[in-house]
């Protein structure tokens, strides 16, 4: 007999460290699940003390049903900019819907794009990336398509027609070893993936840039039709770009440390999961 709501209430008070990750399985969630300060589950098949969601709009649309089902507080992750179609009134409704949810922003530009300025509910957390020592570049280009995106597959074909390019669709324990072996990573839709690849000493092409101007080995791509020219230029200039790449790599590893990131998420968990869950019908 399903009574996960009451179990969650009890467990959130007596120190349960399980988090239900209600979101996409991707590199971000994979790295998060490697933390031993908490236990990530992807299905709500056991009691948990906090829910994390990575899709603010979808979550806000089903918040009544989900929150009543689970009776836990939620961390809403904002990892992408607000959609251009999101109107002022939509933001107002979103803010009202998320009135009891805690919002995590990893980047100042993304935070500005959403304009959800409730400081009591907002947490600014810096991404953290694992450090990988063997970053020998043996291959030229990879494109990341962990979330099985058709437009990325088309982009892969577009690049492959001109250059030797691999597509990475799976996450496994060799992920860091694989990513670090490429000189160039194309990561169109994911800021975390871009940062991770940049931290291995690769040059990254991405639609998203962190607001942090000290990271110089990520190029912002607006028009992917001319990406092959950009790729060729980086490969041609590879040796002269090394100082920029290595400086950025060091900066990322110094400033986006995995332990700080894990502790920030865990501190949020400890702070939020014990708070009384309030639902307003």
């Amino acid at each position: 007999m399903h009574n996960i709501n009451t179990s969650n209430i009890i467990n959130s008070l007596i120190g349960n460290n399980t988090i239900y990750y209600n979101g996409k399985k991707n590199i971000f969630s994979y790295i998060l699940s490697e933390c031993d300060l908490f236990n990530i589950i992807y299905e709500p098949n056991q009691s948990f003390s906090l829910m994390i969601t990575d899709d603010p709009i979808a979550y806000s649309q089903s918040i009544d049903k989900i929150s009543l089902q689970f009776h836990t507080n939620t961390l809403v992750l904002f990892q992408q900019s607000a959609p251009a179609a999101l109107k002022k009134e939509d933001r107002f409704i979103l803010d009202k819907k998320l009135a009891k949810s805690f919002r995590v922003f990893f980047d100042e530009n993304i935070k500005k794009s959403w304009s959800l300025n409730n400081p009591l509910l907002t947490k600014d957390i810096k991404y953290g990336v694992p450090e990988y020592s063997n970053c020998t570049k043996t291959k030229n280009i990879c494109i990341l398509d962990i979330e099985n995106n058709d437009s990325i597959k088309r982009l892969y074909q577009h690049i492959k027609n001109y250059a030797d390019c691999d597509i990475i669709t799976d996450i496994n324990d060799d992920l860091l070893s694989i990513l670090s072996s490429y000189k160039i990573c194309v990561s169109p839709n994911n800021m975390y993936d871009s940062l991770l690849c940049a931290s291995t000493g690769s040059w990254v092409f991405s639609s998203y840039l962190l607001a942090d101007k000290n990271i110089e080995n990520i190029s912002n791509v607006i028009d992917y039709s001319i990406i092959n020219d950009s790729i060729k230029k980086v490969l041609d200039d590879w040796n002269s770009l090394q100082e920029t790449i290595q400086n950025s790599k060091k900066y990322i590893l110094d400033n986006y440390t995995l332990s700080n990131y894990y502790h920030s998420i865990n501190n949020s968990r400890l702070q939020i999961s014990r708070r009384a869950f309030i639902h307003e019908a």
Partner: protein
Amino acid sequence: MNILYIAPYRLANDLGLESLNLLCHLYDSEHIIVSRCFFNGSATIKDLSLLDVINHTENSTISKFDLLIQHLPIQNLSYTSKIGSSLVWPVTQGLIPSNEQIDKYKFLASKSMFLCDNAIDKFLLEHIGIKKHTMLINSISNKLYDKPNIGKFDIGIYKTYNKYYTIVNHSLEHHIQSLIINFIRTIGKKQNNCLLLFMPYISQNILDKYNTYIKECYKSFDISFSINKIIIIPIDYNIDNLLSAHNTGDVYINLKDSIQKELAKKFNHKVIYNKSSQLKIVWNRWDLQKNGAINFYEDLDLNNTVISSPGTSNLKEIINANA
């Protein structure tokens, strides 16, 4: 003792008020209380005059508990071995549980003390074979009752009448219709008796429906009247309105056992009770609950009014017994 209390105490209905009342008693005890509200989608009380109690018990930082008290429907009750003692006050709504639910009741009964606060729930627990249960006297906490100015509803010419009244959810259609007929054919014939029906959150359509029903009843009894003596008063469900409703009426009609009966006692009102000996299990063909419900099967005797003084909460004894 550190006590964790899980109940729907923020809900704006009788169930929520019962839970809130017990929370007030717990708050006034010598124990450390942590509360968590259980929500089911119903409206929540907006004018939280008891916000201090709620905030204090919701913001406690205790993480080790000696006693768990749950006031929840059977499907939401939980068991944990990490809290030594457990009190279960099930929300039954008089419905006979399914076989699966009965198994859960029996499992919880082997680990917990069951509480009930009315004849119907006591009957139900005994019906499913749970002998280990205690009648909880959830008398009205002073925190709910002691208000500086309790108002009265303006009922115009009826204020000089002998005012029979009840506070009832409009969805209890059968009970309300039965009461209307019962009133018209018995005490309603007397010149100075009127019936006040306080109904929380009633829409204009439903109000019109009940008023039409009242007119039809008078007509079918062939009673011509110069003045309708059954008045429906729509109210928002909040503590001030409930106290005002009780302060307006004279004789409380206890349709379904609820905390309103205890509030009426606080006002020293006469109460018309159902008789617990008249309980039986009924199968209503319109009822989605296939296993039936427990109900009173005879009409209320509106001439049988009783003055009963408010009880004294036995929560302290119950907690001590489970310490």
